[in-house]
Each structure stands twice: as structure tokens, then as C-alpha cells.
């Protein structure tokens, strides 16, 4: 936690919820807003209204942003089991083709809650069948539940997926861009 204007603000993955992490990521990736405004919005999303910074010195604000962004690099342990609302969920560092296809769909559409959706794909409820697990409505419901969990639960899986998919692309399993089955009329 970091103290800003007398308030405790989360800035580590084990303090931020997945939802907060998603908001911060979305704002950080928005190149249409300038860095000061971007961080005002990030702090606002974490509970400090923008107006409280109106009398703040810019140099001090920049220092604050640096402190906020300089959380220590921590190797977060991989969490493989969770209990949420009375149900047990298990995840493995393993990707099936079906998981990858769903994650790929999320990556292409980039919905706002993509981290929680990916976590929802990776964590499977122990008492459900695969068909139930992959049902669209179930994934959405689970993503909503997981949003409130801390981001350190999802991040190791995001890293694993990124590494895995990069490895697959390097291995040449990507879609041909100039497919012979494509008409060039």
C-alpha cells in the first residue's frame, strides 16, 4: 500500500483487485490521455477524487506517480486452488486447444474485463463438467466473481499464457497470412 493524501492506496498485485488492475491497465494503455490526466484517473479509480489534486504541485504529483509505480518486483506464488462463494476452483499451468481458442477470442476483442475472463477460463469449478465450464454464461458469471479477488491470482497465468502463445507462434503454428485457400480476385 502507498499513502496518498492520507489514504492507503493499493499498488501491489496482491493488494489490487483484478477489477482495479483491469482499470489501471486500460487507463495506462489509453494513449489519448496525457500522463498527468491518466494518473489522475487511475487515482480516482482507486478512491481519490481528482479535485483533491487540484492544488497539488506538479513536481510533487510526478514524484507521487513514481512512488505509486515503483512497487517492488515480487515473484508471486502460483495459486492453484480457490474457494469462492462456497465452491472450489482449480487451475493448472496447462492450456488445451479449447482454452487457447477462448483466450484468443478475448485477446482479439479485448473486452474491458479481459483479465477476469482469462482467470475464469483457467480456474475450473471442481464440481462441473467441461461442457458446463466452457458455457459462455458460466465464464461471464465466474469472471464477475473473480473481479473482486486480488490480481496476483491471475497474473502468473497471464504470464504463462503469454509465454506459451509466443512459443507457439515462434514454432510457426500461426495462421498463414497468404493462404493458398484464399481467393485473390
Amino acid at each position: 500500500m502507498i499513502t496518498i493524501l492520507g489514504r492507503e492506496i493499493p499498488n501491489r498485485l496482491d493488494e489490487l483487485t483484478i477489477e482495479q488492475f483491469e482499470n489501471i491497465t486500460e487507463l495506462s494503455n489509453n494513449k489519448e490521455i496525457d500522463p498527468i490526466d491518466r494518473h489522475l484517473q487511475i487515482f480516482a479509480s482507486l478512491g481519490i477524487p481528482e479535485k483533491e489534486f487540484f492544488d497539488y504541485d506538479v513536481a510533487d504529483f510526478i514524484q507521487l506517480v513514481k512512488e505509486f509505480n515503483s512497487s517492488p518486483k515480487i515473484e508471486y506464488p502460483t495459486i492453484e486452488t480457490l474457494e469462492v462463494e462456497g465452491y472450489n476452483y482449480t487451475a493448472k499451468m496447462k492450456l488445451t486447444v479449447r482454452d487457447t481458442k477462448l483466450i484468443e477470442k478475448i485477446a482479439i476483442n479485448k473486452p474491458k474485463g479481459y483479465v477476469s475472463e482469462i482467470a475464469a477460463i483457467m480456474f475450473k469449478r471442481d464440481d462441473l463438467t467441461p461442457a458446463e465450464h466452457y458455457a459462455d454464461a458460466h465464464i461471464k458469471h465466474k469472471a464477475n466473481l473473480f473481479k473482486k479477488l486480488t490480481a496476483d491470482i491471475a497474473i502468473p497465468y497471464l504470464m504463462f499464457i503469454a509465454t506459451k502463445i509466443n512459443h507457439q507462434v515462434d514454432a510457426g503454428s500461426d495462421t498463414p497470412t497468404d493462404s493458398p485457400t484464399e481467393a485473390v480476385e
Partner: protein
Amino acid sequence: MLDQTPLQIALPKQWSDVTVEQFIEVAKIDKTLGPWHYNSEVLYIFTGEDIDDIDIDECTQIVSKFKWALSQPSTKYKHELLGMQVKPLAKLCLFEYIDLDYYFTENYVYNIDKICAILFRKSKLNEWDEVILEPYEYDLNARAELFLDLPITDVYGLINEFLKFRDNFLKVYSNLFGEQDDELSDEEKAKLTPEEKAEEEDEKKNSKWSWERMIYGLTNNDITKSEAVGALPLTYVFNMLGMKKELDI
């Protein structure tokens, strides 16, 4: 010749193991859904096996076995298939060319079975021992189905052959076809005056009905003669049109 993968999935080893139907199905996969969607669909089409539950490392291993599919099938083709022979393109009649042009413009990969159905013809010898090809009067869809189970390599080269023929044909008769304008962007359309908009609409209508308009003109507005005109050799029709235009008659 099919290849056995570690998962005992029998994979085609080359384009000649892939049927026309499979080739069309692969072409129809929505590539915007991403490479993994594409790969699993291709594998399903090639093998009939649902691989969704296997690990992606294993899938990558399988996919790496059909890298040959990134190259084109051979541009050669068989001139005789299913007891039929390819009609020489220079001998196409008007209706045959119009239909081929339609299927090529729409999507020649999706329509390759129909393209084959137009080009492969039954034949017989006449009383002078000359080869006579069947007229273009059969059920095109029923004929097209016959080609679906053949290896794609038997017919793929026909695409290239027709494209070359059409390219040359359009060059030779370029004065009859005129310039094809590119489609205007939404921004360009917004800048058009009402008169220019009306002109663009007219051009679109003319382009949509260009073949019908041509036939209507050739039959002197008597549509009962259109079958007879459609059966005329393509080059004869265009030579006559060229003559009419040059002599302004």
C-alpha cells in the same frame, strides 16, 4: 498417403490427400477468429477429429506436420476426369464464360466445384470422328457434386488457367469493357454533388446488369432469343460486338 501423428490422428501429407470439398471448407474458415481457431478447424476438416481437449503443445506438434499446406497446390490439372474432358477455353460459349466470370468474381475457391462442372464435359465422336462436347444444358449443381471428393490437385490448376485466359480476353476486348472505376470510399461519396451521386448510381446499375444488358442488345430486345445467343462462341460474339462498335452500326 496419410501420416499418423503421436495422437494417432491420420493427417494428409500433401495437397493430393486433400479433397476439393475439404479445400473449400478450409477456405471458408473465419481467419479473424485467430490462429488457434483456424488450426483446430483445419485439423477437424482434414481428420474429422475434435482436438479441442488436447494440450496446445501436442496440437503444435500436429500442426507442424502440415506446413506443406502453406504453399499452393500444384498449378497443373488433369485434362480428363470422371470420364469427362476439359473444354478448351478458346471454345467457350457466351453463357459458359458469363457463368465462369460470375463464379470467379464471387470467389473462385468457394466455387471451384462449380467451375469444374462448367469446364469438364462429356464427349462423343461424331460421324466424322471428330470429338463433340456435350452442350451446356445439364444440372450444374449435380455435376459440381461429382468433383467434391476428388483430390484438389486434380483441378486446382484450372483456376490459374482461366485467370490467364480471362486476363488476356479482357485485354483483347478492352475497348468493349471500358475502364473499371474503383469503389469510392465513404469519405469520397460524402463529397459528391447530387449530380455526381446520380451518375455513380447509374454506373452501379449498369455494372450490375452489364451481361443482361449486353444479351438484351444482342437479341434486339427479344429475350426468347437469349438461349441462342448464349450458345454462340464467346470470341465470335465479341468480334461482332467489336465490329459493331468500330463501324458504329
